[in-house]
């Protein structure tokens, strides 16, 4: 196959346009550098009438918002991709499991994510020093704090000053008031001895700049916001960078196959496949920044084999793909008799929780080493496919008959509307070398690119943590007067622990460290083996924390970009 080469020589080629790639696009273009952004999916703008799903009614979807092959999280979800993408398989080592979510679109997964925007705390960077497990990061909270501060001010995150030791405060916008079910959660948690604080999410509850609107409380952040009042990498980073005149060429529907290197082993550009004509093209650049997602960036590096990098670019340590880890997760629903026969009003709020519980216990007294946070939900949500299924099954809890037909069902639907609440735990697992992704020697995708094979298992640390989550759920539900629904999961189903990958926080595949034999990138996310290649997605994470990774990806990407600019000025790269 012939390779079409572009004559242009970019200062920086950025692969991927999510949190890490979006931030890199903004910071590097504003420094006056010429940028190529190579994105595997199409352009996406939530304000484009052709693409907008916000404020659509359920009946505007013929499947009434049901999930489908192309929208596993529902027909209005602003994510092109999912667990399975036609033509782009991945495989597993027998007996192991990992569900891999990919978003192929400008802005990546930031278009539909939960916007929970938590800083890692001082202990999260040095957890091995605290409990002897995993590895410490080569950087500390103090190295990242200035960037967290800048991210807060640039993008906007609501929250409250709480002075908790491992949950650093930031430059917060004011949080929204709790909803009714959230007041019950606060009350119940207090009784159960579990602290609750205002949520920390990246919706703009107060004006942050002239280009973005202020939240109008439709509760649909997962659909993307047409006035840009929540964070997504397209609306908050890439579009502003374009608007301020950045030299940015956007290559969409372009799937990077590998990073090309010169005789000295330095990157000289990338090869990508245009999905529309299925031809290969080359781009030239002085610096390559990978931000394709932890596993996709690992895949690109492992597929970038050359004489100088026979095991894949940056893989002299053999560490690429190793230490893959996802957050742990478990969830439970409950029925709140006090929330029956509700007064109907609009309580959409922001697209997520107005309250949450950061980790509050001491693991040294528990049978699992790392913490989790709690998320709570409930409310009078907009009906979509599935609403009205088993319309009166809750009758069993109030001594009434289940089933029937006729207009009695209308009364039942109204009686129970908004009376079910739920909780999720999201926790940290220990990164382990034997949880990894690698190149499957036998399988390629429809573009001929060798695919990833996953090998991931949980340990009793995570199972015990999930068991503890369920105990906590029950304590809080009991204290708030709610009836827990369903069977409590037991040992036979890992105490309800979600399958690896399901929480969509995969990190660790190109981990950061000072020792090139044990890590892939240095503390500036720069490959030990090629100084002009950087990784700014979740790959460099040494450990996950019980926090959602996005805010840390953004802060580290900004920090790395400052380093790239500095190194280019000094002509070191």
């Amino acid at each position, binding site marked *: 196959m012939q390779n079409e080469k572009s004559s*242009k020589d970019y200062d920086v080629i950025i692969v991927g346009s999510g949190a890490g790639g979006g931030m890199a696009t903004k910071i590097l273009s504003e420094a006056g550098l010429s940028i190529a952004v190579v994105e595997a999916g199409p*352009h996406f*703008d939530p304000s484009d*009438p*052709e693409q*907008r799903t916000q*404020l659509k009614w*359920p*009946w505007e979807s*013929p*499947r*009434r918002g*049901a999930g489908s092959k192309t929208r596993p999280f529902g027909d209005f979800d602003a994510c092109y991709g999912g667990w399975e993408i036609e033509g782009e398989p991945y495989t597993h080592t027998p007996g192991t499991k990992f569900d891999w979510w990919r978003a192929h679109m400008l802005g990546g997964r930031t278009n539909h994510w939960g916007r929970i925007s938590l800083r890692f705390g001082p202990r999260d960077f040095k957890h091995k020093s605290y409990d002897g497990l995993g590895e410490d990061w080569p950087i500390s909270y103090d190295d990242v704090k200035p960037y967290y501060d800048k991210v*807060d001010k640039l993008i906007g995150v*609501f929250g409250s*000053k709480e002075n908790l030791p491992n949950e650093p405060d930031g*430059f917060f*916008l*004011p*949080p929204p*008031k709790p909803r*009714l079910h959230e*007041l019950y959660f*606060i009350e119940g948690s207090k009784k159960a001895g579990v602290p609750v604080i*205002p949520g920390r999410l990246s919706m703009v509850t*107060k*004006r942050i*700049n002239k*280009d*973005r609107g*202020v939240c*109008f409380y439709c*509760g*649909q952040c997962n659909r993307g916001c047409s*006035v840009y009042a929540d964070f997504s990498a397209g609306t908050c980073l890439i579009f*502003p960078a*374009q*608007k301020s005149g950045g*030299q940015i060429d956007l290559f969409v529907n372009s799937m990077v196959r590998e990073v090309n290197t010169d005789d000295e082993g330095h990157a000289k550009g990338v090869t*990508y496949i*245009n*999905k*529309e004509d299925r031809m290969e*093209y080359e781009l030239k650049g002085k610096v390559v920044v990978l931000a394709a997602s932890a596993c996709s960036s690992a895949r690109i590096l492992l597929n970038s084999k050359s004489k100088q990098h026979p095991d894949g670019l940056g893989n002299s340590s053999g560490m690429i793909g190793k230490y893959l880890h996802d957050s742990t997760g478990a969830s439970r629903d409950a029925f709140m008799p006090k929330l029956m026969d509700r*007064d*109907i009003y*609009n309580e*959409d709020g922001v697209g997520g929780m107005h309250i949450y519980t950061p980790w509050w216990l001491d693991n040294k007294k528990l049978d699992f080493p790392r913490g989790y946070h709690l998320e709570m939900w409930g409310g009078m949500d907009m*009906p979509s496919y599935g*609403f*009205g299924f*088993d319309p009166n099954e809750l009758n069993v809890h109030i001594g009434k*008959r289940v*089933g*029937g*037909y*006729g*207009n009695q069902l209308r009364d039942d*639907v*109204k009686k129970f509307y908004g009376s079910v609440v739920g909780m999720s735990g999201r926790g940290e697992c220990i990164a382990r070398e034997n949880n990894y992704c690698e190149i499957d020697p036998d399988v390629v995708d429809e573009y001929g690119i060798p695919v990833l094979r996953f090998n991931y298992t949980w340990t009793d640390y995570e199972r015990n943590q999930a068991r503890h989550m369920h105990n906590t759920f029950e304590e809080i539900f009991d204290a708030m007067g709610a009836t827990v629904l369903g069977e409590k999961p037991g040992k036979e189903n890992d105490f309800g622990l979600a399958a690896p990958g399901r929480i969509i926080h995969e990190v660790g595949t190109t981990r950061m460290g000072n020792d090139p034999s044990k890590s892939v990138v240095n503390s500036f996310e720069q490959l030990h083996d090629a100084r002009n290649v950087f990784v700014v997605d979740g790959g460099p994470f040494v450990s996950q924390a019980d926090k959602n990774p996005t805010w840390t990806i953004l802060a580290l990407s900004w920090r790395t970009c400052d380093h790239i600019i500095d190194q280019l000025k000094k002509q070191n790269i």
Partner: protein
Amino acid sequence: MDRRKTIKSMLVGGLAGPLLVAGCVPEVDDKKIVIRDTMGLYGRTPKEKEHDAKVMATSIFSEHELATITVLCDLILPATSSAVSATQAGVPEFISFIVMDIPDHQLPLRGGMMWLDHRSKKLFGKVFMMCTTEQQKHLLDEIAWPEHSSPEVAQGVAFCSLIRNLVLTGYYTSKEGLKDLAYQGNVANIWDGVPSDVLAKHNLSYDPAWLAKCVDQSKRDLMAEWDAEGNLIS
């Protein structure tokens, strides 16, 4: 400049060469949230449009099956003095679509209707839709209450649950169903806490210390500013 057209003309796929996408992001003013008229559009990709068109162009139901579904729809959710029936809310059309989109429903639904006609012929000597309303209700009474049905109609109970689920979900995701539910959301608004009468009814109140941290909606449009310690000062 028509931003959308501009972007479209500039984004011609992943062709090599400079494709500078100029910044044409609209200024937004949240005091006037104008949602452009996009009837008929709900953010489909070309591939999704193709799939939807294909699904909509096909139907698996015979005329008899559709007629049976229609009868069942209005037995499950008849009209009231203030709300339309399931048929009037377009539920049969929804069911016709969804069984093509989620094919797993096809067999239990079509087989279930055959079961229903069989049972009906056994009891009344004619298929379900030819029965009187009284006879139809007699049959539904046998299968609509899972905990109070005899084992010999267990398959009918499963069918009844499925059709009831589809009718209810089709109804309460329709315009008419949301009206019946008195649903208030999905509009631009400013959330400023639980209405005070609702709080009183639930014997709940906001903790003043918590409330002090929350957004002052009268200042939502003032540009955020902080002191060096991160305290909001605007």
